[in-house]
């Protein structure tokens, strides 16, 4: 992932805070925020993840002119040929990708907190990768990635470390 331009804007912070059920006015009310130690609206601690909105290649968002793997007329968009769009389900369809695994870990180090007006860029580098055996899920393949978020002055503001896992079998809890 490389995000060239991630503008942090107040309306996006409002929607993000609302979606995590956090009505703390530090995320939405300028005059309240101005009166606090922080001094301005800031973004909730996990907001950096919403940089996905500004990654032109982000794989978990449908893209213009490309087939999406979620359902439309049939259960999977990826596995149905254009000449064969109907509602029948084949075993083939059931083997469809569930989008490259699950999120196993997420870590953020805050050099400072994000605020409206920041225009960030983000660069992601691969980290370690490793495997584990699990009775419940078969072979687990873990891989790490490190993302550095910098502001418009080049200052490092947040470092994120993400670990993804691909499992052999579906885990239902």
């Amino acid at each position: 992932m490389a995000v060239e331009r991630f503008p942090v804007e107040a309306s996006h912070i409002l929607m993000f805070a609302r979606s995590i059920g956090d009505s703390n006015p530090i995320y939405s009310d300028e005059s309240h925020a101005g009166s606090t130690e922080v001094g301005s609206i800031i973004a909730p601690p996990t907001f950096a993840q919403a940089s996905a909105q500004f990654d032109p290649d982000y794989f978990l968002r449908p893209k213009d002119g490309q087939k999406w793997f979620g359902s439309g007329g049939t259960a999977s968009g990826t596995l149905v040929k254009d000449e064969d769009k109907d509602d029948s389900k084949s075993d083939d369809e059931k083997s469809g990708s569930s989008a490259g695994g699950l999120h196993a870990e997420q870590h953020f180090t805050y050099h400072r907190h994000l605020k409206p007006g920041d225009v960030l860029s983000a660069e992601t580098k691969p980290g370690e990768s490793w495997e584990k055996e699990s009775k419940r899920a078969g072979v687990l393949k873990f891989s790490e990635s490190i993302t550095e978020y910098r502001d418009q002055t080049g200052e490092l503001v947040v470092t994120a470390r993400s670990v993804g896992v691909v499992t052999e079998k579906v885990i239902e809890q």
Partner: protein
Amino acid sequence: MGLKADELNVGDSYSEVIVEDLTRTQIVQYAGASGDYNPVHSDEKFVTEVAGYPTVFAHGMLTMGMTGRMLTNYVGDGRLTYYGVRFVNQVWPGDTLTARAEVSEVREEDGQTLIDLTISTTNQDEKFVLTGNATARVD
């Protein structure tokens, strides 16, 4: 306002119910705000017929986000210097989650007083869905 170092002890804890009866709509809201539109979180047809799960489930990052609310309510706004978690079980619509932080250390670093916290979020069956750690500046 942050916590006060001289009023804090290792073992102090704080907890909050971060969601009651999680709705599918909240998961949709999180998809829209975060930009993670993975259909396993909002597409019942895909998730049951293709991905093989019983129903849609929450983004791990939604649970981390909701748990973050407990954290910032405890340590204060803009006080976190580190927040990291593991997603240890899935979160489903209807779940009621409780997030908890416990002080594991109070220490000095670069002239600042920091606390380390151990975090866990459990569902209505007392099963862990998230475990983690955080560090915050205190007064």
